[in-house]
């Protein structure tokens, strides 16, 4: 029978080119989740090196400027990245920043608490809230988009209402004064590397002010936190068993459950981690600038998600990289500050951001297709 013969031949044929094809280095690079973001970083640096080279953007204080902005966002993005790889969102982190800031400032300024105690209180409260959000998501099976959107409003409303209740104000300042002799506060509001910069200026490697003090007095602690957090998250994701569970939870929850991965626990812990990141951001902000405001962190949840998506993490979960999220945050910071330095109207920033997001999502889709292609 000619019909059966031909069908057998068809199934035999694709077998022999199955594994012979060699991949070039470029092809391998293309399959990395963070490749697009790495290329994007090089691209924006190239653009602003041309546009803003003589504006001081790449002088010591300019570099510190965009590094700090990027690091702030990166702290949030690292948390959002792990959670997104596990297949969930947390839209409440922006409100959490405002909330945690107030939890630090109000007890310290109005109730006479030592600053370290109110910092601990902020972390404990946020971790509990993160666990509550995670538990709600896992228990109800509702999309985390809706659950965390609810908490976006609940937390923001609560922050404003409570700060008016306790202080009659929505902006509380004066934290710097009470934090002066605190042992914990410098860990968030301080600077590091000051001696190094003084040494640099003494050897004429760094510009100085008229009084001889170096142009850059030190690097804000948030930069150090960002690097520590990135190293920690990368290690967890790629080199610990939990990373395997995070990928599996987002990649195929049912399969993960079937082989015994505690997916609910994974998700709840990651919601707590994003809350931790938001509180870390808030602590650094409150202790560096000395004030807390009820409207701090508005839209930060979306900026974090944008940075993560630009970094190559799939919105649907199961694939992504912390390094990518860092690159996404760096692109964000460099463009934001770069536009200022190059004198371009900063309204264009959002236009750029939206376009970048769209391009990144399209690119990620392409990568996903490539990695799941039958070779």
């Amino acid at each position: 029978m000619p019909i059966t013969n031909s069908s057998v031949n068809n199934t035999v044929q694709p077998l022999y080119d199955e594994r012979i094809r060699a991949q070039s280095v470029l092809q391998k690079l293309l399959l990395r989740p963070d490749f697009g973001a790495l290329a994007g970083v090089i691209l924006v640096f190239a653009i602003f090196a041309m546009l803003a080279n003589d504006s001081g953007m790449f002088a010591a204080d300019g570099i510190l400027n965009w590094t700090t902005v990027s690091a702030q966002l990166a702290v949030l993005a690292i948390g959002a990245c792990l959670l997104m790889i596990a297949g969930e969102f947390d839209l409440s982190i922006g409100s959490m920043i405002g909330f945690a800031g107030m939890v630090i400032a109000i007890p310290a300024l109005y109730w006479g608490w030592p600053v370290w105690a109110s910092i601990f209180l902020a972390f404990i409260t946020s971790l509990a809230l993160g666990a509550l959000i995670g538990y709600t998501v896992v228990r109800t099976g509702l999309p985390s988009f809706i659950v965390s959107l609810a908490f976006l409003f609940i937390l923001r409303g609560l922050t404003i209402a409570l700060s008016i209740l306790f202080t009659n104000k929505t902006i509380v300042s004066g934290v710097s004064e009470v934090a002066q002799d605190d042992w914990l506060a410098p860990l968030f509001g301080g600077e590091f590397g000051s001696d190094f910069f003084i040494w640099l200026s003494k050897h004429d490697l760094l510009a100085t002010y008229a009084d001889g003090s170096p142009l850059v007095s030190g690097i804000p602690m948030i930069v150090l936190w960002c690097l520590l957090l990135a190293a920690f998250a990368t290690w967890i994701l790629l080199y610990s068993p939990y990373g395997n569970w995070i990928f599996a939870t987002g990649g195929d929850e049912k399969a993960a459950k079937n082989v015994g991965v505690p997916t609910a626990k994974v998700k709840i812990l990651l919601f707590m981690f994003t809350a931790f990141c938001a509180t870390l951001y808030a602590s650094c902000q409150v202790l560096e600038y000395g004030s807390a405001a009820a409207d701090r962190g508005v839209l930060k949840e979306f900026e974090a998600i944008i940075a993560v998506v630009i970094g190559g993490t799939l919105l649907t979960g199961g694939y992504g990289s912390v390094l990518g999220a860092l690159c996404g945050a760096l692109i964000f910071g460099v463009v934001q500050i770069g536009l200022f330095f190059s004198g371009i109207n900063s309204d264009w920033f959002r236009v750029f951001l939206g376009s970048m997001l769209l391009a990144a999502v399209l690119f990620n889709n392409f990568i996903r297709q490539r990695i799941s292609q039958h070779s």
Partner: protein
Amino acid sequence: MTKPIIELQNLSRYFGSVVALQGINIQIMPGQVHCLLGDNGAGKSTLIKTLAGVHRPSSGHLLIDGQATVLRSPKQALDLGIATVYQDLALVPLMSITRNFFLGREITKGWGPFAYFDLKTADHIALKGLADMGIQVRDPSQTVATLSGGEKQCLAIARAIYFGAKVLILDEPTAALGVKQSAKVLKVIATAKQRGLAVIFITHNIHHAYPVADQFTLLKRGRTLGSFAKSSVSREQVLEMMSGGSELAELEQELAEFSYNDAHTTQQDQAQL
């Protein structure tokens, strides 16, 4: 004679008023492929789930290594060496072969909180586990999504074997596969058999299972039509028992008409050419 590794004695399972399984007697021998045949609704799924610890029998006994055992959870079944490879395979497509192989049972190096997932060794073991089953993989870090259906099935089987399965329950392992891919899976099953594992091969298609099976048990509407050694029964006899003689005769007649029509149209096509 070797003793059966699993024995079902007069096992029944009811769901409310529905009789899913009634008086099942089966013996599963190590080093043999036992083919469970049955049409849709014959009770195959209930039987697998009973063996896998998902359902408990309503009456009758389940003997494992000669011991009457009540399986309380899938985990307990797994600990006793009964591994079930379901149709969805429990593989995560966007993760690498190695990461899937060790998912939920990651091997670690180092101490306490600093213990890390030993990917290097894991890569090695996954490659070897697959190679032992006759599956050559170029790169264990490539994603599972790039594997063919047959390779995925083999990966799931190799994983179960590596983690100490003594009894392998395969739920329709060749259902969605082409001829060549099925052959690959059958080869893996034959290898597993050679290594002394008991394999329970569930299918509704005798042609897929016949080449590797040693025993056949036919399920129909929750009851067994008996178990047969391959030597004592031909493919056609099994088929006939499965569908019932008269139905098969009708089917044959229909098929004959089809082939007549096919031949007729082919002749016409050739005439036109």
